[in-house]
């Protein structure tokens, strides 16, 4: 596909003059020694493995219960240990500030009083949860599990594309990708010192234990899923079994005197921490959507009484909203007194008339997103859209400009990727998973998503993206 822009992409494997970067030297040497057809064969093997293990996801809008595989690319993405060290400092800093922001807006609201962000932006946001005002959470942590989406535009330049503070998914792919790579290419791990990621479930369990109500010493922890037809069900089941905790649905829980119990073969058993993969709206039909069959009546009241902890907390959406995103660098300065280590993507707010005017005049160069959208649904990628698509989108913007933000089309870096014609560069992003308890933890790397179509900049799995194993090499 032709891109009409003249963006220059950072190639993570090769320098401008075509030389293989140091970090990829061992890998490319290994690859050059392979008999012809080996990678193609291994690629097919990988697909078979994934299908047999049932690592699938459901796609909204397809036949109920249809399961698809996320394409797995067998060429790893490689980071050096120094660049990862820099990156992870920035990620931790950002998550610390976001949690401080959430605590603040549900308590003293100092950041509003200081005039850094408007009361309207926070309190009128429909994701702001009034019931959370004055509720104290253990360790003052709201987003126990955060997914920070990063893109690379130059050797030392990373942008944060968005923060995911509600129910970020994809970590099971990070783990299964590594597992599959080790099964397919044991020799690669013998000649590379790859930092392990397999202890993520243990770190998650530690984080959830630390999230327990303060007076509970040996908490009962569960993972709560919307059910087996949810697109991320595999991941919910995977994490529950890796942590050795029950995987529950709303129908397995009930509330009695502001305490949460699960129905077991031995009668009711109290639950102290719920790692819930159900959105706020569906948690409790008494407090939120009355038509929700996924939730547990009385759950919010039990939560606000401090008898049960939810991870993530209720009302975190207000901080990962794309219009709040703009203020994160200010939050870092305000709460931590530090200069932000990671930059935001320059963003236009279409609620501002100057920005709106500029964006409407430059739609073919820009990416426009809905403020509350996610998963790559409902966005416009100017450079790869037709005139008609742009015109249709323009009408949507004009109808409700407040609902949109725009960003320049980013020059996402590329990584070598197996495609039909062989190994070729494709655009990638990175989602590290950040765990916040008494301390902030993350495993080296994260989930790399890759846009498999040539020239495409959309990496979402729902839009034909795939994933890669992500390596951080030890020194």
């Amino acid at each position, binding site marked *: 596909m032709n891109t009409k822009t003249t963006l220059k992409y950072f190639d993570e494997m090769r320098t401008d003059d075509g030389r293989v970067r140091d970090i990829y030297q061992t890998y490319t040497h290994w690859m050059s020694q392979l008999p012809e057809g080996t990678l193609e064969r291994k690629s097919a093997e990988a697909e078979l493995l994934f*299908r*047999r*293990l*049932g690592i699938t996801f459901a796609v909204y809008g397809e036949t109920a219960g249809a399961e698809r595989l996320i394409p797995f690319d067998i060429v790893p993405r490689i980071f050096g240990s120094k660049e990862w060290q820099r990156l992870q400092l920035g990620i931790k800093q950002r998550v610390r500030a976001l949690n401080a922001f959430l605590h603040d807006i549900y308590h003293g609201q100092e950041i509003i009083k200081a005039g850094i962000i408007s009361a309207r932006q926070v309190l009128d946001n429909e994701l702001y949860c009034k019931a959370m005002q004055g509720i104290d959470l253990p360790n003052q942590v709201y987003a126990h599990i955060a997914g920070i989406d990063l893109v690379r535009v130059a050797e030392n330049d990373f942008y944060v594309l968005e923060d995911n503070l509600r129910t970020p998914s994809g970590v099971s792919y990070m783990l299964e990708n590594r597992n599959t790579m080790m099964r397919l290419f044991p020799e690669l791990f013998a000649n590379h010192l790859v930092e392990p990621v397999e202890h993520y479930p243990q770190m998650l369990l530690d984080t959830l234990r630390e999230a327990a109500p303060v007076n509970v010493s040996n908490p009962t922890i569960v*993972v709560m899923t919307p059910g*087996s037809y949810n697109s991320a*069900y*595999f991941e919910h*089941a*995977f994490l*529950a*079994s890796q942590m050795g*905790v*029950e*995987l*529950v*649905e709303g*129908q*397995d829980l*009930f509330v*009695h005197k502001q305490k949460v119990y*699960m*129905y*077991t*073969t*031995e*009668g*009711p058993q109290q639950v102290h921490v719920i790692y819930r993969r159900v959105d706020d709206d569906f948690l409790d039909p008494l407090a939120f959507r009355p038509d929700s069959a996924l939730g547990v009546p009385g759950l919010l009241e039990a939560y606000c009484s401090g008898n049960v902890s939810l991870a993530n907390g209720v009302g975190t959406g207000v901080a990962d909203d794309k219009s709040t995103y703009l203020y994160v660098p200010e939050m870092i300065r305000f709460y931590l007194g530090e200069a932000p280590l990671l930059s935001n993507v320059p963003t236009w707010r279409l609620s501002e008339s100057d920005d709106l005017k500029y964006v409407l005049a430059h739609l073919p160069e820009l990416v426009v997103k809905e403020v509350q959208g996610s998963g790559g649904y409902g966005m416009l990628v100017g450079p790869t859209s037709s005139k008609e698509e742009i015109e249709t989108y323009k009408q949507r913007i004009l109808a409700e400009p407040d609902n949109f933000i725009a960003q320049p089309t980013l020059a996402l870096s590329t990584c070598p990727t197996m495609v039909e014609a062989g190994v070729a560069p494709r655009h990638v992003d990175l989602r590290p998973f950040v765990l916040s308890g008494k301390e902030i933890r993350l495993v080296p790397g994260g989930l790399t998503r890759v846009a498999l179509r040539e020239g495409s900049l959309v990496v979402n799995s729902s839009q034909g993206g795939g994933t890669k194993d992500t390596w951080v090499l030890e020194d």
Partner: protein
Amino acid sequence: MLARTADNLFWMARHIERAENTARVLDVAHRSALLPLDIEGAEAYLWYAPLNITGCAASYEVKYGLARADSVTHYMALDPDNPSSIYSCLKLARENARAVRGAITSEMWEVINSTWLELNRMTWNMDNEKFPDFFEWVKDRSHMFRGVTLGTILKDVALSFIKLGTFLERADNTARILDVKYHILLPSVNDVGGAADYYQWGSVLRSVSAFEAYRKIYRDVISPLRVAELLILRDDMPRSLHACMNEVEAALIDINGSSGREARRLAGEQHAAIHFGLIEDVFSQGLHEYLTEFLAHTALLGREIRDAYMSRRNHFEPAAAVRRTALQMQ
């Protein structure tokens, strides 16, 4: 363990076992069809047996009318509209397994999932001659599932609920096979030792993998009395009612818990009756009457197990109130 998890484990195992038993019944029907049967309407006569054993004769007739080899085989093996076809059983086994992936080992999930995927690859280009291979395949997958289960799963309540599902279903099936065959063979019951009798009772034994065991134990002609004794009372025969009830009672004792008192009592009662039972008494009561009572008792036990362990009711409500609601619902 979650009540719903117990429910899913129970039905996962039960559906695998049911798929295997249906394959056994159909396999024997196919073998029997190779024997000369000198009566009018022989085909229908022969092919009602598998329908009656699995209790789907009525729904079959609505769709196909008279029992015929090819349509009965298709209906019981591959028809998605038949909720107890092998196809449906393997599908439901997988759905139940998928709902409790965290409670079973990844090896167990792989067996169930790959069985389902393979079934879908082969289903639509299978002709009549391939069916015997298909039945073998179903049995193999079931054996593999059992082997993988015993070889990989922790010996805790999860395994107990899997065993409950497996052995309640197996007891149910063995009793049905005996009952249906007994009726069909009734005209020849006095003709002990005749050739037809040999083959017909032989096929009953084969359907529950008991032919060789019979030879080993009795070293004599096949007689209905001994077949019944072997499949009802002998606990060294893995598909006999006695062996199944041993397993069911042991699983219930392992699960324990205050809510299972009535289930344990029922299972103990049924087990004791079979443990101390005499084959002469079974026949003086009437084999059919005996088996009918056994099946009713098993069904009651199944319901009691569900109420005790798998129901989702608020245990903080006074028990009396719950009982009342349950009674009103009946």
